[in-house]
């Protein structure tokens, strides 16, 4: 199954509720632990975790490391990041590259599963997409893009 996790909502529960930015390592740690707990307690086995950053303002490098890099290293499920802005990418991309990691970014235009793009270290990115297709979690579309098979 695909589990949808609303990071903005998790952030609001984690800090005082008035801030929309994912900044500082302690905040990142709390948010990641809540996401991990949600993934661990899902009723059905989670194959893909769609981590949605819609509504999140700024992400700093510490939070990108604490949340995205650590969730990826944990490898509990395939992690797909959605709702990612250019500003978010600016923090996430170098952090992933520094770790030799890659993450899947989903670009969604109006509902349903969208195009996937791998972000991070080039070799890890290529391997990640290959693995996803091999496990039939994603397919190569006729337009040459990659999309999740699960909705």
């Amino acid at each position, binding site marked *: 199954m695909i589990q949808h996790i609303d990071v903005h909502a998790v952030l609001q529960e984690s800090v005082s509720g008035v801030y929309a930015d994912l900044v500082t390592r302690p905040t990142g740690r709390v948010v990641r632990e809540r996401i991990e707990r949600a993934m661990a307690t899902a009723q059905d086995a989670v194959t893909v975790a769609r981590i949605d950053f819609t509504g999140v303002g700024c992400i700093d490098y510490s939070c*990108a490391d604490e949340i995205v890099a650590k969730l990826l290293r944990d490898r509990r499920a395939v992690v797909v990041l959605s709702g990612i802005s250019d500003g978010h990418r600016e923090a996430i991309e170098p952090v992933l590259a*520094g770790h030799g990691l890659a993450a899947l970014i989903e670009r969604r235009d109006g509902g349903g599963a969208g195009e996937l793009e791998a972000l991070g270290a080039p070799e890890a990115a290529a391997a990640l997409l290959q693995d996803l297709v091999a496990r039939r979690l994603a397919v190569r579309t006729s337009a040459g893009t990659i999309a999740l098979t699960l909705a």
Partner: protein
Amino acid sequence: MTRLVDVPAQFDDRSFEQFAGAYVAAARDGERLLFDAHATEWASPYGLVGLLAAGQAARAAGSPERPLLTAPTHADVLTYWTRAGFFREAAELFEIHGKLPRVKPAEQSDVLLPVTPVRAAEDVHAVVSNIQQRSSAILASELALDPKATMGFAMALSEACQNIVEHAGTGGWVAVQAYHWRRKLARRVVVIAVADAGVGFRHSLEPTQSKRFGTRWGDAAALEAALVQGISRFRDPGRGQGLAGIRRYLARWDGKIAIRSGTARIAIVPKWDDDVPLQDGLPAFPGAQVLIIIPEQGSTTP
């Protein structure tokens, strides 16, 4: 007996060394200090947060009485320091002498972020939230930065402030201001200044790094390790991202960073500046003081 520490007439990162030398000499015997700013004509954000760090250090040195501070006598200077939020913070550290004007800290002006205390992660959230609301227009319209750069600016600010929370062992201050830098660049700049009088980089990194550096170990080596090599005191491989991220951001926008800690100062120097990349043997001023400058985009030939 009271020992005098002169605050330079033009108080910025350059004249800070003169100030630090005066502070170190005066603080040597533990007497009460008098910081004399009566003749100060101008202070950069770095000067203001640096002066607070000196007050913090003087209080931490254990003198039973608060250090004294003579406020600037020039009305415009006094008004600016007040608008910049300096006296609101200074009142806790110093016994202030001089008539302070009744003006509120700046809401809409070149003071993008008044002098703001940073003690915990919650303060960093507040700083980032405030700066995004106030800085985006200035960064885009006056500095001609791509609107995307606003987010990077908030990231850099967040990481600079987190150094205090994670490494200083005490609180510190941040201030952000935009101004026209006539002397150096003849164009507008945005300046972030962060200062604390905490343990400093050498002390923070010593348990994990001193052996690796051997006899070279000291304040300069610690700054080099942190800023150039991205080394953190934590063994977690993801640590050290903050300063590396700031460097990347500044490289993209032709900015500058300088960090002073203990007896050393390191700078990543852009082409438009002639600062010294690494200085050692400076007066032993406690904590860490960070300066970040982002210039108006376009030709930055000095």
